[in-house]
């Protein structure tokens, strides 16, 4: 099949865009959640974790409705010439951000929590401002959490299927990702192409998980030394 390259490009582009967006979005959320827990934060944590538990069809259904032309949310975008975000790359990015949100927030939050109070007390004695402390102490010390989050989000977005199936419309070069392409190839009984793409994804997923573990082991060893 000639459009396999296009599907791979859309997938990589989607995963990279989602990863970048989520690192930005998840950092303040992870930071906020890592400081002092209370019931409200538990509720927020539960909401963020929903995509892990919900079937992608539930998420896909709500997104299809929310990004459809009759949705009040889309009414806000009508003045800018946007009728619907369904079947668009931007729509897929929004879907992927929600779908992968817990995979970004959790590692970042854990990394911040692991820092404890001491570095901040030290920074305070050195009269560092809060913002200064955040950027020059917290962020660098929590870098492992960010790397984990980035890898997980990227891999998880590549592995997305149900949400994309429901809101994507399989437009080649725009919304047709590798997982959708594989499904179509299976429906068409094109097993050789399906094998090649599926095998490629399998290798990718394994490599992503393995590198996570290796990074984790190396960094733990460094910290112990």
């Amino acid at each position, binding site marked *: 099949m000639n459009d396999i390259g296009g599907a791979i490009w859309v997938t990589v582009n989607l995963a990279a865009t989602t990863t970048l967006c989520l690192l930005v979005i998840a950092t303040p959320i992870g930071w906020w959640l890592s400081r002092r827990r209370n019931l409200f934060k538990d509720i927020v944590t539960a909401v963020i974790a929903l995509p892990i538990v919900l079937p992608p069809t539930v998420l896909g259904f709500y997104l*299809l*409705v929310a*990004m*459809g*032309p*009759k949705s009040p949310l889309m009414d806000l975008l009508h003045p800018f010439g946007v*009728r*619907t975000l*369904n*079947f668009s790359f931007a729509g897929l990015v929004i879907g992927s951000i929600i779908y992968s949100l817990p995979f970004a927030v959790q590692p970042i939050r854990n990394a911040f929590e692991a820092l404890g109070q001491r570095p901040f007390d030290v920074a305070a004695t050195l009269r560092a401002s809060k913002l200064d402390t955040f950027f020059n102490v917290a962020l660098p010390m929590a870098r492992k959490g960010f790397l984990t989050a980035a890898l997980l989000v990227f891999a998880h977005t590549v592995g997305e299927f149900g949400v994309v*199936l*429901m809101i994507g*419309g*399989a*437009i080649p070069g725009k*919304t047709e990702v590798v997982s959708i392409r594989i*499904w*179509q190839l*299976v*429906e*068409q*009984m094109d097993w050789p192409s399906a094998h090649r793409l599926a095998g490629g994804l399998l290798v990718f997923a394994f490599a992503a998980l393995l590198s996570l573990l290796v990074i984790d082991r190396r960094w733990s060893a460094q910290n112990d030394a």
Partner: protein
Amino acid sequence: MTIRRSFLTGLALLALIMPSIASAKDIQVAVAANFTDAAKEAASAFEKKTGTHVSLSFGPSGGFYSQIQQGAPFDAFLSADAERPTKLETEGLGIKGTRFVYAYGTLVLWSATPGFVDSKGAVIAKGKFEHLAIADPASAPYGVAAVEYLKKRGLYDAVAAKIVKGSSIAQTFGFIDTGSAELGFVALSQVYKSGKGSRWIVPAGDYTPMDQQAILLKDTPEGRAWLAFLRSPEGVKIITSYGYKVHTS
């Protein structure tokens, strides 16, 4: 541990119950998505008459074809085309001599917005829309017919970038029904009864006739009775009430 144990107990119970759910009188039928409503009505009429419960699965014909090839446990298959049942027959997966056209499908250009589709289908050539929905031609015969029409009229290249594909004709209908796609090609049977929005029936000569064939996959009396029911006057009456044409001999 207790959660795990009760889970396992639940599974064991389910395994005990399962065989009794699928009693000997039940049949499993794979149905092309365009025939969903007609099949439901026919199945309940058939059950009332014979006591045999027809369990229906809906999806794109192409998907069912590959599933049947991989041993899916269907008793019969109602496809949206003639090609796949014919293949199943020659491959020995369908029962020889049971294949017949249960309905002739009609392709229709449809929009959920009244007045959007004009009486000549010129709306496509004008191109004043963002998304045109079709069923994925890879697995859905109605998608093949839609592409065939667009190519025959020389419209395909102009609209190619606006085409969104539903995985089955049912999802395609949903795309249009929600307005996410302003218009699209669906089966007449999907819009025949509701009369919602605006529609234009694509001229029959502009695409290969949609001979929707059925074939028996497991030779059981119940399966044969089900196919016979679809050809009976009662079955034909239900099928034609959804806008399908039926060959009456």
